[in-house]
């Protein structure tokens, strides 16, 4: 097939950015977050929800400023490349690709498991994993407008189902279905306020990430937006607000309907909460919401993983053959197709918790570098030196909070998944060595490391001269 290197289609509006961000993450309200309850009890769970919520709000503020100032498809990878340097950008780029491919694999695994449960058979599990990945990859191959408009519709329906169960329980009336003492007292009458003490709050943080994991991906649609300076801030911040609302409502409904022991080990907590209401239409709505949220998440993950890979290929971090844009649909179709076999391979492994653990570890590596990138971005290009569009409030507080909370989350994650976390760190050290020994030469040969023509950094007036590949590109 003939292809040419042209720009991606600029067709997206703020609601597409919202759909991309919320679509990837909303599945976390339908499953996974409830392990916070098992780790520390219901109160530790809401604290994890809000503390990790602060981490993600700061991440969103930081990403929104850099995303609207540097609207390129790779998102955090592009910003890091411009601000910090190619080695950090390579690590961020790989981390993003793996974060989203692993999430896509996990989503397809869950859809396979749900369909297997429904049918009662074991042979169709892999077929559903394969079908999910194949259909969504085709959708992304066919065009970003179609893929994200579909994502908007299914994400919106899934979001509404959370409110359906909330209002079905009649939370503010006397005839409420909710047991208002359940967050502090189990059905047996035991005190479960903090069943494992204060350390349970730290332990809960590792699963608190499920409430919001992947929201930063919303900024990766910037290059395909009609007006990135409006679509990225509006879509991303509205998306973060949507998730904060959904997370708190989900916690409220589930912890007041289901006993903490049951909730802590549930595979589908919102669906189990629906079953606790005993109302068939609510159960049907939440089942649909669970399936749709998985589909929306996998769809958004394909979009983000492919854009990051495409961006890295454009400047030679990986083979430039991957940087082709489809002549008709204007999508990075080779990068989209690359995600398919990888997601299927991880999906077929059946190791849901391992896949998710690697995704979270990759995300945390990325967040720590993004926080440093933001601090350097403001130092090198202070306000007024470039056109930065949205300006994040109270800098450097958000970047510092992001850094501190990311290390806190890493500590919590280490307590739960020490081997996975160390393995992930070793993997990224190997990635760094691969860049230094092999990939760096190709990037230097390419000669176009900087995507934006910013002025010489304020704190390092000599920085251009230190980068011979920039000279070659000029």
């Amino acid at each position, binding site marked *: 097939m003939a292809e040419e290197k042209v720009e991606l289609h600029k067709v997206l509006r703020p609601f597409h950015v919202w759909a991309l961000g919320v679509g990837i993450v909303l599945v976390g309200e339908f499953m996974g977050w409830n392990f916070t309850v098992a780790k520390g009890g219901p109160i530790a769970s809401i*604290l994890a929800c809000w503390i990790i919520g602060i981490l993600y709000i700061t991440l969103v503020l930081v990403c929104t400023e850099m995303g609207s100032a540097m609207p390129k498809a790779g998102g955090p990878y592009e910003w890091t490349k411009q601000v910090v340097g190619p080695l950090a950008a390579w690590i961020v780029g790989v981390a993003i690709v793996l974060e989203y491919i692993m999430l896509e694999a996990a989503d397809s695994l869950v859809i396979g498991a749900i369909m297997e449960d429904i049918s009662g058979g074991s042979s169709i599990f892999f077929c559903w994993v394969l079908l999910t990945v194949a259909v969504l990859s085709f959708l992304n191959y066919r065009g970003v407008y179609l893929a994200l408009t579909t994502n908007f519709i299914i994400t919106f329906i899934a979001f509404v189902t959370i409110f359906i169960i909330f209002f079905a329980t009649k*939370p503010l009336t006397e005839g409420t279905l909710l047991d208002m003492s359940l967050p502090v007292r189990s059905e047996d009458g035991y005190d479960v*306020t*903090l069943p494992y003490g204060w350390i349970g709050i730290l332990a809960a943080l590792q699963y608190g990430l499920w409430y919001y994991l992947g929201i930063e991906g919303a900024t990766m649609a910037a290059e395909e937006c009609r007006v990135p300076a409006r679509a990225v801030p509006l879509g991303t911040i509205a998306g973060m607000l949507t998730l904060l609302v959904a997370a708190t409502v989900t916690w409220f409904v589930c912890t007041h309907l289901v006993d903490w022991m049951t909730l802590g080990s549930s595979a589908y907590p919102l669906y189990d909460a629906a079953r606790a209401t005993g109302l068939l239409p609510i159960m049907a709505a939440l089942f649909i919401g669970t399936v749709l949220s998985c589909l929306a998440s996998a769809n958004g993950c394909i979009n983000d993983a492919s854009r990051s890979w495409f961006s890295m290929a454009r400047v030679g971090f990986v083979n430039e053959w991957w940087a082709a844009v489809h002549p008709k649909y204007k999508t990075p179709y080779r990068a989209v197709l690359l995600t398919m076999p990888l997601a299927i391979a991880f999906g077929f492994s059946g190791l849901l918790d391992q896949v998710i653990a690697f995704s979270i570890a990759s995300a945390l590596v990325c967040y720590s570098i993004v926080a440093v990138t933001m601090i350097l971005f403001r130092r090198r290009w202070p306000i007024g030196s470039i056109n930065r569009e949205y300006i994040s409030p*109270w800098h450097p507080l958000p970047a510092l909070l992001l850094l501190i909370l990311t290390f806190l989350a890493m500590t919590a994650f280490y307590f739960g998944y020490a081997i996975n976390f160390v393995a992930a760190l070793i993997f990224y050290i190997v990635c760094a060595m691969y860049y230094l020994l092999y990939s760096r030469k190709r990037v230097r040969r390419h000669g176009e490391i900087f995507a934006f023509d910013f002025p010489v950094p304020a704190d390092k007036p000599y920085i251009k001269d230190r980068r011979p590949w920039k000279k070659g590109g000029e």
Partner: protein
Amino acid sequence: MTQKLTGEARRQKLRRMVLLDSLVVLVLGILLWSNLALVWVTTTPIIDSTKYPMLREFVIIAGLVEGIIITAGLVALYMHLSKNRERLYVDIVGEES
């Protein structure tokens, strides 16, 4: 398709677009604060503060910090949309002729 508007009609359309966008995030912001309040009102009174000193305050502070930071982000967003509306809505109202 881009509408061709000029003069006062264009300025009014721009103001409406900013208000519409702001309304969306304002509604979400109100929903968030309502949810925070719901959890504070229903959950904090049942926490035994003699057994768990400071836990009640911790729940309130965590929610407050979350709400305040995102609200600051919302205010910055409104200022950005309002200040740069001539450029940000060009795909809807078109270039000034």
